[in-house]
């Protein structure tokens, strides 16, 4: 890192590259991507399933469960439940697994910039 000559306009540029290639940063990136990518695929497939069933499985969606409450309504409400659930899971995961790592690396970048 000390051999790098950072560009004049950004004193931290050298330390960004060093931090990016550090194993700690790799594990931060991995922690984030391991959660958000699979979760994005999951909710998207789940939502797509709902839209596709609305288009092609009308008989199934019309099956009544209790009184006038049918599968379509319950399926729709489950989309709300899954959205709230994923949001809550993410906030828990992020504050436990991502924030501490991010804080640590942020401090290192800022220290590198001062040096």
């Amino acid at each position: 890192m000390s051999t790098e000559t950072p560009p004049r306009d950004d004193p931290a540029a050298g330390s960004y590259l060093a931090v990016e290639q550090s194993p700690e940063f790799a594990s931060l990136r991995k922690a984030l991507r391991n959660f958000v990518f699979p979760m994005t695929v999951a909710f998207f497939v789940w939502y797509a399933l709902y839209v596709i069933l609305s288009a092609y499985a009308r008989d199934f969606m019309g099956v009544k469960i209790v009184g006038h409450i049918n599968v379509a309504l319950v399926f729709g409400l489950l989309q709300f439940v899954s959205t709230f659930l994923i949001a809550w899971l993410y906030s828990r995961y992020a504050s436990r697994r991502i924030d501490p790592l991010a804080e640590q690396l942020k401090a290192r970048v800022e220290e590198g910039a001062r040096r």
Partner: protein
Amino acid sequence: MNPILLAADSGSSARSLTITLFVIFVLITLGITVWASRQTRNATDFYAGGRSFTGFQNGMAIGGDYMSAASFLGIAGIIALSGYDGFLYSIGFLVAWLVALLLVAELLRNSGKYTMADVLAFRMRQRPVRTAAAVSTITVSIFYLLAQMVGAGALVALLLGIKPGETFLGMDADTAKVATIVFVGVLMIVYVVVGGMKGTTYVQIVKAFMLMCGAILMTLLVLAVYKFNLSSLLGEAATKSGKGAAFLEPGLRYGKEVAGDPTQTFYNKMDLLSLGIALVLGTAGLPHILTRFYTVPTARDARKSVLWAIGLIGAFYLMTLALGFGAAALVGGAAITKQDKAGNTAAPQLAQALGEKYLGGGTGGSVMLAVIAAVAFATILAVVAGLTLASSSSLAHDFYANVLKRGQTSERQEVQVARISAFIIGAVSIGLAIFAQSLNVAFLVALAFAVAASGNLPAILYSLFWKRFNTAGATAAIYGGLVSAVLLVFFSPVVSGSPTAMFPHNDWHWFPLSNPGLISIPIGFLCGWLGTLLSREPADEAKYAEMEVRSLTGAGAH
């Protein structure tokens, strides 16, 4: 006699009450705006509210920016008239927030400064990317603005109960519409020019609070009629609609099956899928939503604000079920279409019916109608202010400061230009809205979402996650998605060749779907990918390292 809105005596008292309540809202928000202007000293204050808002405040403001008149009046109206299909909008609009939460909000907050283009242009050549981003920001915002302002104009005559032939303050219904558009336009310019992001954010918070109170009140009253039994509310709505159980199932409006015409049936189904995908991918590409993330100090606060927004918006969209089916059951489809064919007045009409039921007689109805009508106006006003701010920020910060002046300008000058831009954009949208009055509001909103999902989202995701992405890829993604979305709409049955089209007597349509998302969103992604691979420009490794570290850790965040 039409009992709704027009009952002669209660009509005029409702009108004066609506106007009184609305004037109170305007005075309060103008007071806030003037106060905010005293706190606005530099560019960060003007563009990002000094980054001083808490997660909760910004979450409320996001709700205020997002729950437009199209959600409040439009979805309630669609559910009231077409039943279950309206609920699809509610679900798509909510699930969309997961894209913002998981993939965009925090990374954008950490690596950007004032606009969406800050992130897109971070490691690219500034001028082409910022120009493209400004073009797309302004296009999306203008479509969205038009929808809100046309909606305001269309509603005013109905909400104020101006009958054909009748005059109000010497204006007939058509003049009143134009006057409303101009009035809304002038107010939004004042909010933005004077109050900047600080003033606009507080306006959003006040509006979100009013809208939630109004929706909660109406939902409780509707449910109370049915002794909090959802099933009997649904049963009555289905019976009153005359469509029976089908009213509670998907298919009355979208993805219709046409007997003996498998091609048309196929297109209808594809149209439903296209709408579904545009709704869920549009939100995280809306510039006025993205700039909201800059108003909080850190990425953690950006996350918190999305979590609050998801809670607030989710609760609101759940209530659209009660509002829509309540209007179907208590007002009835016939009475709603008599007021407005598109069903946009279902919610205010429901308010009136509930007022008559609970507060007794015509006066009670007028009071409730007045309250909900004032909430609807506040909703429209707040959303247009947010849109004007986002597009004038982009014009000033992206186009003026970074493209025209190549970054050689003072903060003062830039904010001055942003204020002038707000005037220009406000004036342009007032003019366009007056000409666009015959356009369908829901169509304009869906188009804005489709353009945002096709033109902005691919470029944002590639910038944040794909190292190889470069200037050519970014401009190709933005222009490819934007142009294909707009062109496909132009050649769709929404614009020509169908009885409900903008030009019903001409026919140049060849694209069978009314929503372009299913085709134009993949085109946006494809253009970004091809543009990147076909250009010889290598990715800037150091810049990517800087962006990745900054976006993930928050180091060096503005």
